């Protein structure tokens, strides 16, 4: 397993080209093309802002300006959720490669997660726009933590993606289960509401939710004034994520031989 892991480093070039291909191919042929990366989150933003500002304005306490608050959690979530959805099917749709070309299969989920991360980066300008617009309380030390949060999320997502992609080969209905699970997960995560103002019991549950810590970290860094108090949780989650990734990779490696026959 460690050998295989080390081998991945040699595949940088291939991963790069595949990610580039993924990004190019995604919007090829659509009129707005690349701008969909902006439009999709903006639409979501409009809907949620409308609901929580005008329909039930009491719900999100302490989250003003709301668009900025929501964006801090929503963009990372989109990266996470679409990585998982896509990677659950990636081995099946890439079956041709696995069956006919000598090809380390883990590259496919890795490419999916990475491509979605690039999308996340591409949507960051909107976030920057909102940060400037609302003159958010940014400090340099906090901003330096931002890459760390991204790294933790990347490793955590990768672990999930490896497990999901490998298991979906054997159990195809994981994809449907997953889409429902993600909806639930979204509302269980402080993205459209604030962790600080949630009831204690709910907060206890949220502490068990890995993505909650990521979302809170993003929010503390970019949105809330004051120091980045959540860093202990983030470091812990970082350690867990590395372990999680190794578990995922181990499982993937165990099931590797079955892919060429099952997909």
């Amino acid at each position: 397993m460690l050998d295989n892991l080390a081998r991945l480093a040699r595949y940088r070039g291939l991963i790069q080209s595949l990610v580039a291909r993924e990004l190019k191919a995604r919007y090829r042929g659509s009129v707005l093309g690349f701008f969909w990366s902006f439009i999709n989150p903006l639409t979501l933003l409009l809907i949620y802002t409308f609901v929580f500002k005008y329909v039930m304005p009491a719900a999100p306490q302490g989250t003003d300006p709301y668009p900025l608050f929501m964006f801090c959690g929503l963009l990372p979530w989109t990266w996470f959720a679409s990585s998982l959805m896509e990677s659950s099917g990636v081995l099946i749709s890439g079956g041709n490669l696995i069956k006919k070309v000598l090809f380390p299969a883990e590259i496919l989920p890795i490419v999916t997660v990475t491509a979605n991360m690039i999308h996340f980066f591409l949507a960051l300008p909107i976030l920057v726009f909102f940060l400037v617009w609302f003159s958010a309380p940014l400090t340099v030390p906090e901003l330096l933590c931002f890459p760390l949060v991204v790294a933790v999320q990347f490793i955590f997502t990768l672990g999930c993606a490896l497990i999901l992609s490998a298991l979906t080969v054997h159990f195809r209905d994981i994809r449907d289960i997953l889409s429902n699970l993600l909806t639930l997960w979204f509302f269980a995560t402080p993205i459209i509401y604030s962790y600080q103002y949630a009831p204690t019991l709910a907060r206890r549950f949220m502490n068990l939710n890995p993505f909650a810590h990521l979302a809170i970290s993003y929010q503390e860094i970019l949105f809330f004034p004051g120091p980045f108090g959540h860093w202990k949780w983030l470091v812990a989650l970082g350690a867990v994520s590395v372990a999680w990734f190794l578990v995922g990779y181990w499982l993937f490696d165990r099931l590797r031989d079955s892919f060429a026959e099952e997909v």
Partner: protein
Amino acid sequence: MTEYRGPRAEDRGPTGERTHAEDRESMIEDRTSNLGPRSSNMQPRTSGLEPRTSTAQRAAIEVLRVSKIYRRFAHRKQFATLKSALLSRSLIKNLKPDETFTALNDVTLTVPKGRTLGVIGRNGSGKSTLLKLIAGITKPSSGTVQVDGRISALIELGAGFHPEISGRENVFINGIMLGLTKREIARRFDEIVEFAELREFIDAPVKTYSSGMYMRLGFAVAIHVDPDVLLVDEVLAVGDEGFTHKCLNKFADFKRRGKTILLVTHSLGLVDRFCDEALWLDGGRIHGSGDPKRIVDAYITDVQHREERELAANDAKARQSAAATIVSPDEPASAVLPDSPVETAIAPGDMFQASEGRWGSREVEITEVMLTGSDGAGHVFRSGDPLDVRITLRAPLPITDFVIGIGVFNAQGVCCYGTNTAIEDLAPEYLSGDAQVIFSIASLDLVEGTYKLDVAVHKIDGYPYDYHRLLYTFRVKSRAKDVGIYRPRHTWRFDGDVRFKSPERDDE
């Protein structure tokens, strides 16, 4: 989790150690070594420590006692559900096979460097499995596979192409997948496009390509990886004649440069002509290997025997069903046979629309029809061989008005030849008791194909005693794939400044 280690994993010599710089150079080798069991004696291609002569003698492909067992899942359908697995608490159990299928059984083979091996065998004999094992795409259930050098497998062409992006980008990505670096591809790019004959279309998205263009591009990329070991799985049928020819030239070029080729094909002529050695797989086992001509001949003979049995079984079935539906002599005979009996046996008329069957009054009965070639009775004969049709008759009462006829039809129902005793001015005198008729053909000058026989005994006016319509099948085999119905005996002669290379095979 490499569970297999090549038997020579330990004796990695000084040349087996490689530096970091070489790692980048020999990316494919590393890939293969890590993916498959061929972990051991891989030499970096750049290593000049070993003299050329000794590498030429080393094996390029070594397959040692390899078996491949595919699992089948009887309980679980292909699209099993997680829920049901969880409910029955058999998640782990369900991941285990209930039934196995042995695709390869204890196969051992060695291909020395620079040799071309042709693998033949019927469908499902394990040829493609062997190729995938050597390519490292699947792992053997037991045994070891070692390949020395960079592999390129032409299994499915253009497998990694993405339809939305241009041919140019796909060439780069496909090339990287196959183990080239960006720089190497850039250097070979023009050559690849030239080879694929796609200069004008290279910047169009691949989804707009025809399947032929797609395959050509895939082939061009794969072949320009410049492998040491080339694995080819029945992909020569990708283009027009010209392209196939170009591919073959490329293979020949590979051969000249001392590369190793493993060719899985159904084109026996290609094996015969092109390969140094042939391997015949049957039911996952090696059925024979060695000189291509010998192996191909043995294979053809085996196929004939198989067909023989098949045809015999089919004929028996046809006769059985014909016997079950014996038509009364008057109705069909008068209905189908026109007045002139002499013509009916041969001239294509309405009755030739009739499918196989048997009818007649049975005043004379055809009890047996046997085809005998140079190797004895059978159903498969070589074009140009003698053929005897032995007809056994029984007439319980003496009969004076009788004609014995025979007709040969090809698979399209075209009458290739028909005659009878009346046409050939044999006037009947009498027939009584058991009799045998032998219709002897000196040379079966038919092209390859399946033929059916009509055999009949009837009165001069056409009244049938026993008419066997298309109940006997035989096959004509020929190594020359000429076309038409009849092959006249012929030779070619040339005058003037005409020369051909020495013939590749004699025309049997």
